[in-house]
């Protein structure tokens, strides 16, 4: 069982739309054992079940990467679109223009969003397309085997990639500056917070960005100790594939209390510093959110929780004035009449 945090649910209890939790499962994951992305997929399943989402009203979208494979691993009864690397935002835009009544859950990676896809990401936010946009952020390119992504910490040293000389792109800051009205950060292992944020995100009016730290058990690994996977491969000539990936468990932590600080140990023995936003944090102040992010960056920790919230901007579908989903218009509403053609042509004589 991959999802320790959801073990407690009796699998066959039915929700309000008559579905069991199993009905929200996807195909078996082909990600590494212990990958943070799997934890997130589990929480999506759990939340969809708890919220009694109708699977056919949901679409799942992604780019390319380990993270972007995830949509295959949840909500098997929802349509899915595994797009091109970095281009999920545009595909989502098209899909939701065609049918703006669908609930869209997008899953991307830090490479997918922060490198090749940064432009589309920013413009998606500018248009405020109504969707949940999850970034499974591990600071590396998992699928292409361990290069730094644009969110990697400056100065971080990884075995494959060497030392990262560039400052990280903070995708929460980017989202806030781009005008996003729902920006949150969490940690894949904090199942409870991930679920709470997912639920809130699903009811947001526009794009809701969840930047979820999701450790890559395989590559985000700076430890040279024998207990890291590196032991077997570091001294070998480059191989096609990572020689050996020791089995690992997904990291699960006790939920952080509001305001709590915690040092969480990752698979390789390194630590990540998490701080839950305090109860007195005001997520409606854009500048304060940016300042808080900068402070956290300076202090080398990640703040988790809802960083910025502002539901005032209309979504793209609202701006476009859409009513009946365009994909459901009957032929007679799609093709104007013979008379209308005549009338138009009249003005060209």
């Amino acid at each position, binding site marked *: 069982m991959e999802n320790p945090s959801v073990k407690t649910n009796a699998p066959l209890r039915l929700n309000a739309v008559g579905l069991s939790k199993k009905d929200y499962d996807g*195909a078996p994951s*082909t990600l590494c054992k212990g990958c943070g992305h799997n934890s997130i997929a589990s929480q999506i399943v759990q939340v969809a079940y708890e919220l009694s989402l*109708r*699977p*056919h*009203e949901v*679409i799942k979208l992604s780019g390319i990467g380990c993270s972007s494979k995830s*949509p*295959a691993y949840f909500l*098997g*009864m*929802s*349509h*899915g*679109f*595994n*797009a*091109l690397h970095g*281009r999920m*935002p*545009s*595909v*989502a*835009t*098209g*899909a*939701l*223009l*065609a*049918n703006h*009544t*669908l609930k869209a859950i997008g899953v991307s990676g830090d490479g997918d969003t922060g490198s090749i896809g940064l*432009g*589309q990401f920013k*413009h998606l936010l500018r*248009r405020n397309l109504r969707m949940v946009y999850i970034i499974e952020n591990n600071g590396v390119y998992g699928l292409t085997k361990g290069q730094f992504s644009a969110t990697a910490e400056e100065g971080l040293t990884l075995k494959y990639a060497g030392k990262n000389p560039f400052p990280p792109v903070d995708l929460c800051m980017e989202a806030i500056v781009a005008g996003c009205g729902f920006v949150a950060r969490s940690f894949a292992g904090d199942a409870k917070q991930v679920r709470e944020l997912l639920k809130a995100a699903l009811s947001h009016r526009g794009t809701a960005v969840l930047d979820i730290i999701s450790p890559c058990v395989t590559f985000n690994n700076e430890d040279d100790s024998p207990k890291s996977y590196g032991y077997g491969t570091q001294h070998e000539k480059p191989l096609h594939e990572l020689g050996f990936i020791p089995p690992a468990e997904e990291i699960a932590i006790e939920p952080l209390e509001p305001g709590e600080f915690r040092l969480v140990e990752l698979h390789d023995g390194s630590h990540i510093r998490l701080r839950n936003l305090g109860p007195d944090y005001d997520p409606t102040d854009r500048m304060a959110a940016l300042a808080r992010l900068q402070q956290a960056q300076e202090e080398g920790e990640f703040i988790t929780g809802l960083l910025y919230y502002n539901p005032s901007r209309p979504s*793209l579908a609202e701006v*476009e*004035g*859409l*009513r*009946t*989903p*365009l*994909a*459901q*218009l009957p*032929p007679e*509403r*799609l*093709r*104007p009449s*013979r008379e*209308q*053609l*005549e009338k*138009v*042509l009249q003005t*060209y*004589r």
Partner: protein
Amino acid sequence: MSVLERAQAAPLAPRPSVVNDFSLVVATANGTGSQTANLTLLRSFFKLGLPVHGKNIFPSNIQGLPTWYHIRVSHEGYIARKPAEILVAFNPATAPEDVRALPAGGVCLYHTDLKGLPQRDDLTYYPVPAAELVAGIEVPVKRRPYLANMAYVGVLAWMLGLPLSVIEGALAVQFDHRPKLVEDNLEVVRRAHAWASEHLTKRDPYRVEPMNKTEGLILMTGNEAGALGAVFGGVSVAAWYPITPSTSFMDALREFLSKLRRDEEGHPTYAIVQAEDELAAAGIVMGAGWAGARALTATSGPGLSLMAEFVSYGYFAEIPAVIWDIQRVGPSTGLPTRTSQGDVAFAYTLGHGDTKHPILLPSSIEECFEFGWKAFDLAEVLQTPVFVLSDLDLGMNNWMGRPFAYPDRPMQRGKVLGAEALEAQGGFARYKDVDGDGIPYRTLPGTPHPRAAYFTRGSGHNEEAQYSERAEDYVRIMARLARKFETARRLVPPPAVAHTPGARLGVIAYGTTRYAIEEAKDRLAQKLPFSFLRLRALPIGPEVRDFVAAHEQVCVIEMNRDGQVHGILRAELPEFAPRLRSVAYLDGLPLTAEWVMARLTEEAQRPM
């Protein structure tokens, strides 16, 4: 007025009048407002019943660079480009060269402010004192140069015998019947006409007489026609990134949609998005097509390059999409305001890996309209990206045409399974060839059935749309896609064939080169008779093979450097490859009948 006097002194042999048959060019700088005057002229000839066509040869900037507006009037109905016989020289920067380019017997109307105009004995010169003619009109000073353009309209009207009432009618259309604007402009025309009648003596042979050759016809640009066709094809999502010469396609689309596609309460039943670039535009179209809306984008060469990755996706994941490429001159930024047929081969197999895409090749506004709606049927029936390759000449210029035929069949939405069908058959396999035509079934997101969902991906998949790296699965999917392309071969519009009995020479072409070829065909009817097959789409069907088989030599005429369609035909018709000759040329200007005649004559003389 020294120019005028000297020109008057030139000995010109008296010539018989030339009625309704001339080509005229107005040379100005862009941003001077001459387009209004030019379109007024075009529309006047049209209203007079004369077959006419106008081409704007304009620069890639906003103000101050040379622009030439070509008008061809031909009682025989020829509308291909023809070097100008009558010049309106209003641009000091190009006037010397423009004058030198006139043929003997030509006419030069010139702005009286022009200095140093070349003097030729074999031309007729008429001055146009534009500044003086607008001097008294009640408009802000800054707008005077703009109105001044109407002065040449007036002088031309005098010269050609074009009735002022016709011009008034044209101005009314041009200015959407706004009295003040019509009046201001007409006033200048009148003054110029009066001035010319009083001060000038007609010494050239050109004149117009009413005909009835444009009755019932319309005058429209290809981009407008294509956009209108798309509207009648039910387009619901359009995404694009501005690029010349596709921008006016989207402008027209927006305009038509806003008039024709609103619900009872006035809400739009469509969405148009100006994307951040062409990659995003392509992605939006893919997403929308996948979710069941008819979606299009319009672009030109550079945008096409940027869409390559998504088109490869659309091919493999089988997503309907319509992509208009209004071709301009490449490579790279090239000549953004000049016409070409330079993207055909690139579009045909756009994207990495083995890909093939149906391409529609309109040659007229009628076909722009027709392909405008048919492209959606094809895309949805075939579940694949479909290209429409127009060009700048067709897209941005005004062409005569018959009023468009209303679509003659209901929309073909292709193999889409709804909840009932799924219930009845107990599910479906997204990528399976159930009917033997290579076309699988799909469902739309939102379909209320537990077995409706499937997973779309650009990576390897089996018939059940599951991820697969298995060699057999890949081969099966790809073989079916090849089969689907054979189905496309039968579904795309067939070529238009004009067989000339006994002709040993055949010509194959597509798009707007037809006008020069059709004119050349008539003119060569005796000397070098040839048959003409005009491709209206790729892939080719059996008609093309038959045509090639029936002629000893077949010249493929196209407006690119490398003979792109010629290359495709050679590869697809290997048994006839030796007889397929490439007659390709691209300089950014539409072909002339003269060039076609010369080149065909040359080819006919070359040994087989």
